[in-house]
């Protein structure tokens, strides 16, 4: 079992620029069922992806792959033809929010937006647009979602993952890799790893993903990786305290970040005395979450939480 995506997930790609094409190729090499792409001027053509199979991905495939992906002018056409149930957005920042709204309007149930640098006002509008629609947005500015050996949607390196017992949810890309790597080395593995993104307005928050992991029978524990800015971690801690039946470990980045300085991510800023690492860590301790003192200790913190 897993959350959000599995081997049956049919993925549509929005945005086939250099980045989109590169990562689509990696996903296909991993074994992700990629069924179509959307591009305004290349409709009617096919995109060919070929190369050596990534054997850390889906099992039982031949050593090489060659697939032809049909390109459609609109998401609506693509969904009608392919039955895609998820889409990944690599569209450049000025157009990303529109791509998200188009996917939602066309009946795509899961939209994963990788694009970094989407204007906040665009996301405010897109989030409003999604209200009442049967679509879940992950991101933007996130590494994506992976269920090891089943489906990889996004830019994370597939080979560090291993099927296992722990759900991973994180606001940061490379810190997710760090946690995943440690979980793999400790033999715990992952059910699904979800990057929710480092922007101030995003589609899915910690609580949403924690709830999914809580309901997923295969997930035995969860590691949540947060950072300074906003109050999403505090809300997550409250949820853990009130409803979570599984052990949770965590880490918060930015203990030493000075107030008023944006730490790379648009959402990572302590302002007006809000969003400090100390407040988040305190809330997590209060919810019996095992908080790793440094990122190197994330795996062992999970082990400790599982052993309680």
């Amino acid at each position, binding site marked *: 079992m897993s959350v959000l995506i599995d081997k049956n997930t049919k993925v549509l790609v929005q945005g086939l620029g250099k*980045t989109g094409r590169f990562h689509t190729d990696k996903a296909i090499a991993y074994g992700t069922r990629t069924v179509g792409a959307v591009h305004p001027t290349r409709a009617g053509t096919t995109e060919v992806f070929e190369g050596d199979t990534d054997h850390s991905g889906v099992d039982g495939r031949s050593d090489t792959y060659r697939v032809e992906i049909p390109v459609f002018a609109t998401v609506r056409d693509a969904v009608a033809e392919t039955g895609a149930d998820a889409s990944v957005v690599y569209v450049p*920042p*000025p157009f990303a929010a529109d791509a998200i709204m188009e996917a939602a309007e066309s009946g795509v149930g899961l939209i994963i937006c990788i694009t970094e*640098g*989407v*204007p*906040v*006002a*665009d*996301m*405010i*509008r897109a*989030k*409003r647009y999604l209200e009442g629609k049967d679509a879940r947005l992950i991101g933007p500015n996130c*590494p994506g979602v992976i269920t090891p050996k089943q489906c990889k949607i996004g*830019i*994370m*390196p597939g080979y*560090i993952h291993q099927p296992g017992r722990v759900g991973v949810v994180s*606001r*940061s*890309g*490379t*810190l997710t*890799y*760090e946690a995943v*790597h440690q979980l793999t080395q400790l033999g715990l593995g992952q059910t699904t790893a979800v990057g929710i993104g*480092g922007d*101030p*307005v*995003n589609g899915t928050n910690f609580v949403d993903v924690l709830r999914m992991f809580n309901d997923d029978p295969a997930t035995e524990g969860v590691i949540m990786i947060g*950072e300074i*800015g*906003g*109050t*999403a971690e505090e*809300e997550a801690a409250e949820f853990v305290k009130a409803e979570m039946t599984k052990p949770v470990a965590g*880490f918060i*980045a*930015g*203990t*030493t*970040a*000075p107030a*008023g*300085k*944006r*730490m*790379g*991510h*648009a*959402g*990572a800023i302590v302002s*007006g*005395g809000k969003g400090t690492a100390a407040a988040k860590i305190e809330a997590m301790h209060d919810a019996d979450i095992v908080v790793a*003192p*440094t*990122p*190197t*200790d994330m795996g062992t913190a999970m082990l400790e939480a599982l052993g309680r």
Partner: protein
Amino acid sequence: MKVHEYQAKQLMAKRGISVPAGRVVATVDEAVAAVRPLVEQSGNPVVVVKSQIHAGGRGKGRFKEHPDVAGVNVVLDGIDGGVEATEAKVRELAGTMLGSTLVTVQTGDEGRRVNRLYIEQGVDIRRELYVSVLLDRSVGRNIVMASTEGGMEIEKVAEETPEKILREVIDPAFGLTAFQAARLGLALGLDGDAARNFNGFVTALASAAMDWDTDLIEINPLVVTKSGEVMALDGKMAFDDNALFRHPDVQAMRDESEEDSAELEAKEAGLSYITLDGTIGCLVNGAGLAMATMDTIKHVGGEPANFLDVGGGADADQVARAFRIITGDPNVKGIFVNIFGGIMRCDTIATGIVEAVREVGLEVPLVVRLEGTNVELGKEIIRNSDMDVIAADDMKDGAAKIVELAR
């Protein structure tokens, strides 16, 4: 991106948001020349001389060179002495303030050099209020925040008397509605002309925030004048950097002299860099990992000299530029490279570092921790380079090693 008060007020005036008349000046003569037309236009003998820097707390701030002079000065000399007396006082003030270093609670001890002054008309204040438009992350929408406690530090008000903070969430599909504006005015105790003027003011402010992609518009104080006018006495605006591409007029207002030169250089190279006070330079991929690296350095007893995220798709040249920015900081006593290669390959990082060291030399200890994609290749490149590099097993190990070596 931040702009100066005078720029924020220019932008507001364009949208019909009421601001006092004022002129920005860069010399003493310009300052003096600004007085007469302002006084004649407003009919008020009082003018205000305001330092223009990208930091708050100017009114309580003091100049390093002139500890008895504040960053903002109200000139009352004209009430009895006429416009000549005002001009004389403005001449004296401008001569003192321009080119001097203003220290406020937000500038740090080093302060900021004042290159421009804003000469503004005096206003007959009846009440001072507070209003701002900013993102409420928990609902994913902008809100209007207002308070009767104008002129105070709003964080303090929120902490001590939270009931005095009013909030209205703006639905992006409809903007601030008329009933929301009216509700705010009522709660602020406004009536008559003042209430009508406030409605217009706050509605324009809310729509400007969305149209201009501001992170923050803060009016503190918002004043109600004796004649019932509603005006922005101070104005602070910060813009979403990711949306500047659609606001060339705002972009043109950028004042690079207010920004850290290393941070500017990094931005040009497509890197995310922030100068800090410590001695350990950090070069990391990913914002979260970069923050966590700083935290780990501190955890083992050191102090980071910077935050530096080379991003996910950096090439060898960008890595080399990042390295040069770090070595350009005289406070750096050691460098820690911490990479978890995902899409970013370890051999790319290694090549960039070797290139930079060859070019600028290496006068401080360097600890490198590589993990992830092409890690063996990366380690080999560093081994073969004959550089004096210490390898680390993991992040904590690397941080401990560099902190020890930099002592």
